């Protein structure tokens, strides 16, 4: 009994996907898109100036301040909305950087093999077994604070993962028959990579970006929480959360809960999206058995 293949038509793939995955894609998509709108239009959406001090220190949530105010009287809701620029924006830069580097090195390594591959594999495997969060910490300290420095540190943490993914994908495609057929036709390497291997990357691109966004957000907020992220007064979720911690014993729970919820919702959005997309785009996973 052969299962009819359906190729790579997204609409068709989505149509035949199980309902749970569809729900995941839609819910995750809504979360992610909303947050991305915050990133782009944050300052226009925020009801108040996130840097504006006021007399109302440590006010609990109210109709004036939806999520209360902090110890300097700044509106927490506005700070968190604008903060998405930093928490998610940096993550986006990091994902982009790590993807470009991972794509380049991974496809070279996988396609050409040989000694380049061996050396790159050794380096990347070494980095891979080492906890990425620890070298992010060290790099952030060495490079100093700043948006680009943080993004660079985080992307380095992600490179080994992307490298391995792209490399194994390249190898599996390279071994496919139609690549050999291209060689017989007289096509050169660059042509083959461009027309026949690149499309394969597209099939994992969305899932990888989405997963990368989740891990990037986690890393930035973690760095921020440890006081190594973007320094105050810039409103970054992790930094806000760490700042709010000292007022917890005074009963100002909102300073901890709301930043945490923002991180949680972002993570949930990206994770739902990647999990759902993964099932939709790789129907074989659910055709096992």
């Amino acid at each position, binding site marked *: *009994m052969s*299962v*009819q293949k359906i190729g790579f038509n997204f609409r068709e793939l989505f149509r035949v996907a199980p309902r749970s995955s569809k729900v995941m894609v839609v819910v995750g998509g809504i979360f992610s898109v909303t947050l991305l709108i915050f990133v782009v239009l944050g300052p226009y959406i925020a009801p108040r100036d996130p840097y504006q001090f006021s007399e109302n220190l440590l006010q609990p949530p109210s109709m004036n301040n939806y999520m209360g105010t902090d110890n300097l009287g700044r509106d927490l809701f506005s700070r968190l909305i604008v903060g998405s620029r930093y928490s998610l924006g940096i993550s986006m830069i990091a994902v982009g950087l790590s993807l470009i580097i991972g794509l380049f090195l991974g496809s070279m390594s996988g396609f050409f093999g040989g000694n380049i591959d061996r050396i790159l594999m050794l380096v990347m495997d070494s980095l891979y077994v080492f906890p990425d969060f620890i070298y992010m910490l060290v790099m952030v300290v060495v490079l100093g604070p700043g948006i680009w420095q943080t993004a660079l540190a985080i992307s380095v943490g992600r490179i080994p993962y992307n490298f391995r993914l792209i490399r194994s994908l390249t190898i599996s495609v390279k071994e496919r028959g139609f690549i050999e057929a291209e060689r017989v036709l007289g096509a050169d390497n660059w042509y083959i990579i461009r027309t026949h291997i690149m499309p394969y990357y597209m099939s994992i691109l969305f899932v990888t970006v989405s997963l990368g966004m989740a891990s990037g957000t986690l890393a930035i907020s973690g760095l921020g929480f440890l006081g190594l992220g973007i320094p105050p007064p810039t409103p970054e979720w992790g930094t806000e959360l760490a700042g709010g911690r000292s007022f917890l014993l005074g009963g100002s729970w909102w300073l901890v809960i709301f930043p945490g919820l923002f991180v949680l919702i972002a993570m949930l959005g990206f994770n739902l999206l990647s999990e759902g997309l993964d099932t939709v785009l790789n129907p074989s996973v659910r055709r096992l058995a």
Partner: protein
Amino acid sequence: MSLLEVRNLKTYFFTPFGTVKAVDDVSFDVEKGQALGLAGESGCGKTTIAYSIMRLIPFTGKIVGGEIYLNGRDLVKLNEKELKLIRWKELSIVFQGAMASFNPIFKIGDQISEAIRYHENVTKEDVMKRTNDLLELVGIEHERANNYPWELSGGMRQRSMIAMALACNPTLLVADEPTTALDVIVSAQIMDLIKNLREKLDLTMLLITHDISVIAQTCDEMAVMYAGKLVEKTSVPEIFKNAYHPYTKALIKAFPNLKGPKQDLEGIPGNPLDLMNPPPGCRFAQRCPYVKETCLENDPVLTEVESDHFVACHFWKKILAER
């Protein structure tokens, strides 16, 4: 009463793209001590028949109608618990890809003796002895019992698979493409082995293959399937001499021969049918040289045209007259 009676079997698969009628109203019998060869192309539903008899249809598929009587008992009605008692003891199967059919982390001997241990109340020594005997029976030194499946060659693995299938002296042996994926010489040796075992053990067998010459050499009866339907069934000498159905006739002529004069062959035009949405009428109609309007509208019924010769074709009389 025949040993195996398949009556109006319908097994469908329900995929997100639609329903695949893999086996659509198929009936046949296998007498005790006989071997029936079931021939057909990939996707014609012959493997699904094997899996239906074993009640091993994967969860996307379902037997939606019909009965399968083994010794008068309807297998379709049995629950999992009752099936466990029947499987391997009365019904065993040789799978297509013997590589994947053995569990890679257990030794060959363990996997064979396991089948005996759970079905019969015998001592450890007896199990050991029987396992070794089985391996010797299929032409493998019994020391090989200590090998892992991946340490054996394809031919030896298929031999071990046959040994395992015979472990509990099954009433019916189903062999699903036992020689595909094997090299020419090895597959000839495996077919020899099956032929010898049949004579030695008086096996009742259902052999499923795409290669009708294998059936010609090993079976008593032959049934031909096309696109989920049985199109012809009779004894092997009869079908090779007096085939009625145009598809059977084309199949018999579809092999280049090695002996006799070199002759030009005629292929069957067209392509195999998509079982997702089969058109009404005879399923072979698009590729049939005898096609008339009625073929496109009415599904031909399997009729007994001579004694013990069943054909599903509207024009069997015309074909008979042409002979």
